[in-house]
């Protein structure tokens, strides 16, 4: 805690009155001081764990440097789990985008008072525990669950959704949809109505206005929405465990199992591979996202 004290002393030595410049320096220090609690948090709970994963991933049980853990991704089971996770999270992201964009467009057009209500409804599920929501879906989709009970009551054929990829996609879309809606909605409401009027005024019809003005202006929100849905979908193990049963194994489940079995080195190695995929996809996305709309969070 030596550093913040030094900063503090400097501030007292130079009263703010002295001159504008010194006042500004004082302010800068003050702002820096305010960020210290977070910096300590970040170092303790983000940077150090990341370095530990990097260390475990690149060493074996006897602390010798090795790439064996990373190479384990080419193991057929692991590779299949990674490819399936990529596939399912990609499908979920596309479904979220297709659901969220039209909704955000409707919200943009509507009057503001009704909007806060609709936004509330979108966020409402997030007030409930994530696990609880997913378990609820398990109950709904089960062989003897709510949907099938209703279908049986009417003597209709029952559905077998639980423990399939479809159930996992459903769980991902349900849980992560708000993260797609909100950033898109946020950029769309910021588009000045007169900018759209100007496009219409210059001869663009509704379709042209959307493709040439609204869509390009909303890209930052779309990019941030994609990031905020794709990344947690790719790494999830809770949704796939609850809704996929033991049949469907995603890379998140593999990593979780490795840690449970005490294979920290293998788990870390696979995590590093997954991280490369995430960083790679974010690098592609950031090309389209000049003014990032919160995607830096991830």
């Amino acid at each position, binding site marked *: 805690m030596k550093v913040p004290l030094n900063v503090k002393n400097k501030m007292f030595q130079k009263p703010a009155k002295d001159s504008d410049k010194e006042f500004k320096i004082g302010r800068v220090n003050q702002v820096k001081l305010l960020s210290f609690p977070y910096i300590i948090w970040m170092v303790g709970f983000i940077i150090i764990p990341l370095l530990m994963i990097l260390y475990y991933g690149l060493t074996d049980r006897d602390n010798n440097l090795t790439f064996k853990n990373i190479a384990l991704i080419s193991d057929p089971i692991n590779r299949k789990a990674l490819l399936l996770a990529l596939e399912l999270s990609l499908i979920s992201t596309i479904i979220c985008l297709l659901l969220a964009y039209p909704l955000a467009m409707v919200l943009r057009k509507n009057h503001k008072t009704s909007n806060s209500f609709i936004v509330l409804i979108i966020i409402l599920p997030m007030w409930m525990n994530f696990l609880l929501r997913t378990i609820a879906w398990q109950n709904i989709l089960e062989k003897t669950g709510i949907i099938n009970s209703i279908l049986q009551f009417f003597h209709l054929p029952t559905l077998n959704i639980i423990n399939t990829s479809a159930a996992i996609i459903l769980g991902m879309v349900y849980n992560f949809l708000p993260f797609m809606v909100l950033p898109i909605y946020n950029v769309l409401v910021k588009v000045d109505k007169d900018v759209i009027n100007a496009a219409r005024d*210059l001869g663009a019809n509704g379709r042209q206005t959307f493709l040439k003005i609204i869509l390009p202006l909303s890209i930052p929100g779309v990019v941030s929405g994609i990031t905020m849905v794709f990344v947690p979908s790719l790494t999830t193990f809770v949704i796939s465990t609850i809704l996929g049963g033991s049949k469907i194994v995603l890379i998140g489940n593999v990593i979780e199992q490795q840690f449970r079995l005490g294979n920290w080195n293998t788990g870390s190695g696979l995590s590093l591979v997954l991280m490369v995929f995430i960083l790679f996809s974010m690098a592609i996305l950031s090309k389209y996202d000049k003014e990032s709309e919160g995607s830096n969070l991830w």
Partner: protein
Amino acid sequence: MTDNKLINLENISKSYGDNIVLDELNLYIRENEFLTLLGPSGCGKTTTLRIIGGFETPDQGRVIFEGKDITNLPPNERQLNTVFQKYALFNHMTISENIAFGLKIKKKSKEYIKDKIKYALKLVNLEGYENRMPDSLSGGQQQRIAIARAIVNEPKVLLLDEPLGALDLKLRQDMQYELIRLKNELGITFIYVTHDQEEALTMSDTIVVMNQGYIQQIGTPEDIYNEPKNAFVADFIGDSNIIASTMVEDRLVNILGTNFPCVDTGFGRNQPVDVVIRPEDIDLVKPEDGIIQGRVTSLIFKGVHYEMDVMANGHEWLVHSTDLFPVGSEVGLYVDPFDIQIMNKPTSEDEEAVEIEE
């Protein structure tokens, strides 16, 4: 300016909920005219412009453009273009892409578009800005790009919604002359919305003064300034002395107990009227030469002239004069008969001055 009526607004009404913005408005705009809709905020001037532009639909009434009813035509099918108050440039496009937008939609050839961009940038004195982004330009430059973007489409009418509102005073004055020059070079109709009376007087062929959804007066800048029809117009356009008076007979009005000769007729005998006298139309003379006598109560130097308050016949008269009369001096007030403007008493709230001096 020709006598051809290019746009005709017939019985236009528009309200938002309980708020009536326009009530049975009738107005025509001639070809090649610089027409200004002038009024305080909420008078309905912007709504009128947006109805002409197609961004609002009137609840009642018709918009006729070159003899055709365009009331329900969407903006992209109207032969007019708009310059918006806050520029409304497309920030994700370069300057040339912004200007080319309308032409690309109309599928003009690349060569044609290139020539037009060059021509438009030259017209607004921003040559060489083709590849800049809008947010790297100053407010005045952005507004000129917005004008360039509109005029490359060769509209018959250019609608301007308080285009200089966001600019500082000096720039605003420069842009006023630019707009007059543009109007003359392009030879098209301008419909201009502003709340700035000086802007309106400087640029317009015709001024339409509006208040509370009603047209108060339509006329040339000279008409509007010299012969305001009611207290609202007199008060809104420049400084004025508005005094409740009595029309004794034709060519004689009793103002605050003294008879003043004037030139107006047809108001009847002993009828209550409002009188407008512009502060620069009051001559300060020796007490014995004045129609009435008073004492200077305040004096402010305004640059071009002195602004004085003179207490006479129990009323504070606002006087502009290049001659200095110190506070406390006894003066005579003289007004030429043709500088006295007689108006009927307001018959509704919208015709009243914002602050009427009784």
